[in-house]
């Protein structure tokens, strides 16, 4: 196990810079998830850690050693690919043993390690099968087994669950997390799925357009997103955004939307009167107003899921989603009164997108 340091790392393909100076320090044994929309550079960054891509600028270190010019096989890492990249002409056993065989390990040692990994992953019965004869989830396990047998310093996962169906994805993400708790090997995990990131990570790195938007624990990102991008990316359904201006009158601070609706905010908000802002509130932080003081909203669609009810409404000149634990039977076109939870709303600068 080892820590991983990424210092001012840049990557260009030709004249196009795709990663613009990224700093992340990953401690020993930590499970870090790189998350972001496609094209944000997260996979490229992972491949640079693996040594599959050259580093254009900056420095990557594994443990104490700077690995910029170290070939992949000497970095002591193992990688799990999105398409598993299992060798189709080798049995499960041979797939897992391949790296040890190349390293000229003794055959008894190889067998012991493969058996051990197969046991951890429940693959014992499949050792003589070929990848084609396995289901998607089993192939994914073999890919992880191949990584485990090497006992590397760092595990790298490149969207390993993207090719699985939804149910299996949920199951495998629990398995990967359990595996990490057992092996405690430093892991870097790339995904575009924020739920995967939230459920698995010790720390999440949110990337966007080749820069790091925010680094923090899942709940930190949820509770205190640094900017509108993180706020909109983390959480499902996504946070609602309403444009407006800060209005201070009679000692009370409010956000007034374009059509004059007054939205409640914490009185500690540090912003000048008339400042252009974006008001952010998560669907789960909107309640039905009791009596007066609510914001009027016109219902357009109701989606009952059983566990909760989603209401898509038009409120303060914006499309807003609200999530209720109770079951409501609003009719489309009906006007209801909603109340954002003042202590849990977010206010962002309209120009910079930064949290105020």
């Amino acid at each position, binding site marked *: 196990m080892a820590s991983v340091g990424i210092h001012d790392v840049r990557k260009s393909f030709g004249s196009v810079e795709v990663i613009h100076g990224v700093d992340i320090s990953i401690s020993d044994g930590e499970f870090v998830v790189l998350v972001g929309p496609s094209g944000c550079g997260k996979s490229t960054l992972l491949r640079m850690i*693996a*040594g*599959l891509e050259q580093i254009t600028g900056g420095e990557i270190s594994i443990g104490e050693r700077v690995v910029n010019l170290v*070939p*992949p*096989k000497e970095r002591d*890492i*193992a*990688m799990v*690919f*999105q*398409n598993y*990249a*299992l*060798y*189709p*002409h*080798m049995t499960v056993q041979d797939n897992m043993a*391949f*790296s040890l065989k*190349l*390293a000229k390990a003794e055959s008894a040692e190889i067998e012991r390690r493969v058996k051990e990994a197969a046991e951890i992953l429940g693959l014992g019965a499949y050792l003589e099968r*070929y*990848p*084609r*004869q*396995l*289901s*998607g989830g089993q192939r994914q396990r073999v890919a992880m087994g*191949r990584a485990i047998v*090497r006992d590397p310093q760092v595990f790298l996962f490149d969207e390993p669950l993207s090719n699985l169906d939804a149910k299996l994805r949920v199951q495998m993400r629990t398995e990967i997390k359990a595996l990490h708790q057992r092996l405690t090997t430093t892991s870097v995990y790339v995904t575009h799925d924020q739920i995967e990131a939230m459920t698995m990570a010790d720390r999440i790195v949110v990337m966007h357009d080749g820069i790091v938007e925010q680094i923090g624990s899942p709940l930190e990102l949820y509770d205190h997103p640094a900017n509108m991008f993180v706020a909109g990316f983390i959480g499902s359904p996504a946070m609602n955004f309403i444009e407006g201006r800060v209005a201070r009158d009679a000692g009370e601070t409010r956000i007034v939307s374009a059509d004059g609706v007054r939205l409640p905010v914490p009185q500690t908000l540090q912003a000048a009167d008339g400042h252009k802002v974006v008001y952010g509130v998560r669907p789960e932080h909107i309640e039905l107003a009791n009596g007066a003081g609510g914001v009027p909203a016109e219902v357009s669609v109701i989606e009952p899921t059983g566990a909760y009810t989603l209401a898509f409404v038009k409120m303060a000149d914006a499309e807003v989603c609200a999530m209720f634990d109770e079951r409501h039977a609003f009719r489309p076109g009906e006007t209801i009164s909603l109340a954002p939870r003042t202590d849990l709303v977010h206010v962002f600068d309209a120009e910079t997108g930064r949290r105020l």
Partner: protein
Amino acid sequence: MAVDVNQRRAPAAIEQPGRLKRLSRSKGMMSLWFMMPAATILLLFLAYPLGLGVWLGFTDAKIGRSGVFIGLENYAWLFDDPVFWLAVFNTFLYTVVASIVKFGLGLWLALILNHHLPFKAILRAVVLLPWIVPTVLSAIAFWWIYDAQFSIISWTLVKLGILTEYIDFLGDPANARASVIAANIWRGIPFVAITLLAGLQTIPQSLYEAAVIDGASPWQRFRYVTFPMLTPIIAVVMTFSVLFTFTDFQLIYVLTRGGPLNATHLMATLSFQRAIPGGQLGEGAAIAVSMIPFLLAAILFSYFGLQRRRWQQGGSD
């Protein structure tokens, strides 16, 4: 919605059509009709000439005289004919050496072309050139290259001071064999190279990345990833290559006509030589027919080679 059960159970009045009508409506009959045109063409243009060739091999037909059945006399005659056995030897030498070299060089070329090279498209087109030029044309070009007086190879070597006299490429038996084999290799490489290149491009890049991380050297990546994944295609390519080489006629016929001293006579050229210029249709046909067992052996070899390996067989998903 309630369904009237009685009504559903009521037997439908099925009319009993005549036998002929039923036959014409049957699926098997229909497929037979649809197969007819293709089957006719196959029988007419493939089976008939083949059958005729085999039949001729059992007769003493000559040009201008339809022969009579003489049993295995032609084959008995060939069995004692040293020229026939020389042609068999030549054919094997030609096929084995040319196929091995074509495979080696073709694979090497394919591996090079599979890399990111500048002008890759142009290079690939250039590689295909020997394959698209008509054989007779390239044979004539080689004829000039191998000419006893005007050979560019001899000229270059003499001018460079490496040799003092011109090489007799096609006049000396050993030289002639090497020369026709070289010409065949030149012509056959593109087929091997381009087909193997197509095979190489089906191997996912991530397998190589996984192998790099697993610690494989470039040679080990070839040995453990590229080669095993390429074997099904190699089996196809080499079967075709062997068949083409074994039955080669044009190159030899233009370059040497089987000479000198029958040193480059292949079974195909000898068969033609005996049957058409020599007029012995029966004997020529017998030589051609005696190629069939070898060709069948090559096809059987590939049939077993081509059988889907266990790792290629489908899974349960």
